[in-house]
């Protein structure tokens, strides 16, 4: 199906070369950037290798996934069991706690003077005796308890505790009063308590279990840090989007046409032509999406231009057009909405005032009882600490600013030179190959024919490495460095896109010329047919010719769709093969050849590979761009992409866990992924441009697709308006589409955007201001909160002190260095407690200030 005179045709033929080169590049890159070995993964690799002795391209991941999945299932179940055990334990201990709190309560009352030494009575039904027994035994208990409990449980807290205990006591009393059997009481009590606390948690657990791949991603995050996990979260998000695109095209275009449209073989566009019939079922042809695949619902050309099909009167061409527009509109909407939401989230931010202390004292989950979960938790805590340490180190780093600036400018200059050079190279090569194409490729050497692809592959291979080297000059925080790297490679890949679109446009033009010739030929053919029938003088008026024999145009739309599908397939294959060879095979070799090699393979040269976040993210983004570009001409593309992403998810999760090692510098990815989103938006915009161009300017093929016979594709809207809507509606529509109305509307929109943006900016500023104020209030609150304990401690230490002057060292605060605040606070506090406050004279105070860093002196 490939046209000879195109650069494109070679694009696909050289996929193998491309693939090999990529693998080579991977190895070479690792040579320069090899990392340290990581012991944790030896075992896993060994395990994997035991389970899959023979690597089979397609089956390996499936087999392993099952294995892993089973494993996980088991783990999950175990965890569940643990969880339920814990829960039971908790419920159990809760009751215990209540009894304990009761005891405390009673102790409190006793302290107030109720204590009386009771004699022991053994009368069972005597309530009083029972109570005294209770108290006695509680005394015993309390004597133990008191040792454990620090004295600093303030009266307030005790009060609170008392209240909580009273509440529970009431519940139990009410239960006791009921004439139910013990079992029923027990069940009721348990249920009441469970409802109070466990329902939320169960629901949360359930919600987490419902998120697809959440466990996998969490596991990866715990071992590889949030940057690698951010890629997988992005992949999952993309999967969701593609599911919806797939639903749209599948439900509104493919299924209606397959069910209600004319069947295969009824009209020429739905039949394989006679010349191709022999090879239409060959695997090689089908793999190339020719033959029967080409003449099916998968591609644009199959759809007929009947206005309404089936008993539903389904408006097929209209639906096709609207779905095409809808997928793009929906994608825009989702991407922009996600970006906006992410921006919101990042605007609020977390309270990070106790970052390290919280990590240290509250990160362990005390409910963990499963060894594997515990291992993951250890890993994730370590990763988390490493991320935080890195952030801290980066924020502390203050090198020579001028040198850094100079180096950064230099690096950017170098990168720009690189990009400009490669851009010119691509431009030059594409022009040259167009010239070759005009001459005919047969007259040229192999290199000249494959020049464009080779240049593109080489650039895509070496430029990222070059950028990587250059970025070490810049000394950025790794997260920022990743973003720069992504941006640069993105710019480079745009060249790739450019060549592809140029080649595609050339191809379309060639096909259209061909179409004109075919059109002319067809009129001739019909005329001859007509003459022939007339001369033979047949009475049967309709001439029955098998649809396969009817000559037909080249149908450039189907050709474009096919190119995109082939591109996606070859890209997918390249990714998977690179993954299997570059990561898996390498890991296996390193692991097993290490015993019989002259140097340490694991620590030395090849080592294990790291997960390449930037490359994978870009691959995903460009792949999505291809989908958006091609989905209009090949409705099957979203389905293919869903399949690809699904497989990618499992394959890459597996590959990461079994053959990659974590990066040396684990850094915290920004939670929002807005940078990925921004790139996605750019790609979305770039990929809609050629689509809009083809729809608006190029007339559709005359004999294939839902818009055949129309002058432009969007004429279908006009047609619907005129025939399916009342007359006034089309009138209104024509008025509304008048430039006189549209232009002011656009102007209004621009003004609104400007207004909204300026308000959002001012809000942001206000937000920052408020944050500052909040910080200050928090500082004040800290002092107030700590004051009771400080005063109490001070009193305890100076028990003999009565009505004299004394001093209290107030908590030091970093932001609140203004002592007047503190004085005010102390005054308020003491006034509230009805205590006399006398400040020292100014002179004494000054002396005190000179002596100590920040004392406030006062007396009661």
């Amino acid at each position, binding site marked *: 199906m490939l046209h000879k005179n195109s650069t494109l045709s070679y694009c696909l033929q050289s996929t193998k070369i491309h693939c090999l080169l990529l693998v080579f590049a991977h190895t070479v890159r690792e040579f320069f950037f090899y990392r340290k070995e990581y012991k944790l993964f030896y075992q896993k690799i060994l395990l994997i290798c035991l389970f899959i002795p023979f690597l089979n391209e397609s089956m390996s991941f499936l087999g392993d996934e099952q294995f892993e999945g089973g494993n996980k299932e088991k783990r999950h179940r175990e965890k569940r069991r643990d969880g339920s055990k814990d829960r039971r334990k908790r419920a159990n201990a809760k009751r215990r706690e209540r009894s304990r709190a009761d005891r405390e309560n009673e102790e409190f009352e006793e302290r107030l003077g109720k204590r009386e030494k009771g004699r022991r009575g053994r009368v069972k039904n005597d309530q009083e005796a029972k109570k005294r027994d209770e108290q006695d*035994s509680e005394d015993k208990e309390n004597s133990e308890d008191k040792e454990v409990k*620090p004295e600093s449980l303030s009266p307030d807290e005790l009060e609170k505790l008392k209240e909580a205990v009273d509440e529970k006591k009431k519940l139990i009393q009410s239960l006791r009063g009921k004439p139910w059997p013990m079992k029923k009481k027990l069940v009721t009590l348990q249920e009441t308590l469970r409802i109070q606390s466990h329902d939320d948690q169960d629901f949360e657990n359930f919600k987490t279990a419902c998120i697809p791949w959440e466990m996998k991603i969490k596991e990866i995050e715990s071992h590889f840090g949030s940057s690698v996990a951010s890629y997988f979260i992005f992949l999952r998000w993309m999967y969701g989007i593609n599911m919806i695109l797939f639903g749209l095209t599948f439900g509104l275009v493919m299924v209606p046409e397959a069910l209600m449209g004319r069947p295969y073989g009824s009209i020429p566009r739905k039949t394989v032509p006679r010349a191709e019939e022999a090879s239409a079922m060959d695997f090689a042809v089908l793999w190339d999406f020719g033959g029967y695949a080409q003449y099916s619902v998968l591609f644009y050309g199959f759809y007929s231009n009947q206005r309404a099909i089936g008993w539903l009167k389904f408006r097929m061409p209209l639906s096709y057009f609207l779905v095409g527009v809808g997928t793009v509109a929906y994608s825009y909407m989702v991407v922009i909405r996600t970006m906006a939401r992410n921006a919101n989230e990042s605007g609020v931010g977390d309270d990070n005032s106790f970052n390290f202390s919280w990590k240290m004292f509250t990160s362990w989950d005390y409910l963990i009882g499963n060894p594997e979960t515990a291992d993951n938790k250890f890993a994730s805590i370590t990763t988390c600490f490493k991320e935080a340490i890195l952030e801290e180190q980066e924020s502390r780093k203050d090198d020579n600013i001028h040198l850094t600036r100079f180096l950064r400018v230099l690096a950017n200059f170098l990168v720009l030179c690189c990009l400009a050079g490669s851009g010119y190279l691509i431009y030059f090569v594409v022009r040259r190959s167009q010239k070759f194409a005009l001459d005919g490729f047969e007259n040229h050497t192999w290199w000249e024919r494959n020049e464009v692809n080779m240049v593109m592959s080489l650039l895509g291979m070496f430029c990222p490495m070059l950028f990587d080297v250059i970025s070490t000059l810049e000394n950025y925080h790794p997260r920022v460095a990743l973003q720069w790297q992504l941006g640069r490679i993105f710019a480079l890949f745009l060249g790739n896109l450019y060549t592809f679109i140029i080649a595609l446009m050339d191809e379309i033009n060639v096909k259209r010329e061909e179409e004109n010739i075919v059109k002319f030929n067809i009129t001739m053919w019909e005329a001859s047919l007509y003459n022939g029938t007339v001369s033979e003088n047949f009475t049967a008026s309709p001439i029955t010719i098998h649809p396969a024999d009817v000559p037909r145009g080249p149908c450039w739309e189907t050709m474009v769709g096919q190119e995109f599908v082939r591109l996606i397939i070859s890209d997918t294959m390249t990714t998977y093969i690179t993954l299997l060879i570059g990561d898996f095979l390498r890991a296996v070799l390193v692991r097993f050849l290490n015993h019989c090699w002259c140097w340490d393979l694991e620590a030395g040269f090849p080592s294990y590979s790291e997960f390449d976040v930037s490359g994978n993210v870009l691959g995903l983004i460009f792949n999505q761009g291809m989908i958006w570009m091609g989905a209009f001409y090949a409705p099957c593309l979203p389905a293919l992409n869903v399949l690809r992403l699904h497989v990618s998810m499992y394959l890459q999760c597996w590959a990461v866990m079994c053959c990659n090692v974590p990066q040396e510098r684990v850094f915290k990815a920004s939670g929002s992924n807005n940078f990925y989103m921004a790139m996605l938006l750019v790609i979305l915009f770039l990929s809609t441009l050629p689509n809009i161009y083809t729809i608006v300017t190029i007339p559709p093929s005359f004999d294939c697709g839902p818009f055949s016979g129309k002058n432009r594709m969007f004429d279908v809207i006009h047609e619907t308006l005129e025939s399916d809507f009342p007359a006034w509606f089309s009138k209104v529509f024509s008025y509304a589409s008048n430039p006189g109305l549209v232009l002011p509307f656009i102007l209004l929109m621009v003004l609104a955007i400007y207004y909204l943006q300026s308000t959002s900016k001012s809000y942001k500023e206000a937000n920052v201001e408020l944050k500052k104020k909040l910080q200050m209030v928090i500082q004040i609150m800290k002092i107030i909160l700590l004051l009771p304990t400080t005063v109490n401690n001070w009193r305890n230490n100076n028990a003999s002190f009565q009505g004299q002057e004394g001093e209290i060292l107030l908590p030091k605060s970093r932001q609140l260095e203004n002592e007047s605040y503190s004085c005010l606070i102390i005054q308020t506090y003491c006034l509230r407690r009805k205590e006399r406050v006398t400040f020292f004279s100014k002179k004494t105070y000054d002396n005190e200030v000179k002596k100590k860093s920040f004392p406030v002196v006062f007396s009661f």
Partner: protein
Amino acid sequence: MGNKQTTFTEEQLEAYQVMLESEEQRLHGRFRELAPHLVPLDYTNNPDVKVPLTLIVTMPELKENPFRERIVETFSEDGQGNLSFNDFVDMFSALCEASPRELKTIYAFKIYDFNRDNFICKEDMEKTLNKLTKGDLTAEEVALVCNKAIEEADLDGDSKLSFADFENMISKAPDFLR
């Protein structure tokens, strides 16, 4: 409530008041299965039986916890990690989800205070950190984290955390007592 009093006397049951019989039995069962040769089946005369630390930490609830020894030591009356049944019940009640925040804070402070000087000082933090990360961090990193943590949480400027500091810090933690 007196239908099955083979292991506990009436008084004990009343002492544990609201703790329902079956749960008590269950806990006792758990306690006993740790050391069947030490703990008698009959608890009516309150025997003075203690289970050593090495046996307690094998419980599934504690087995994976990096601080298991500390926890057991904190709750044991003699400070050596030998638990009587009362200590055992205490431990469960403090670690259970429904126990109040204040109580948990107190015990958490005790657990993290390795050298029992009523302050969490740098050595305690280092120990905590090494247990949490299984010693994966380098000495410099540990020192950095300790310094940062003290800088954040220490309000009275004595470069160690008192209980007040600890309480203030932990009461604001989003993860604590989820």
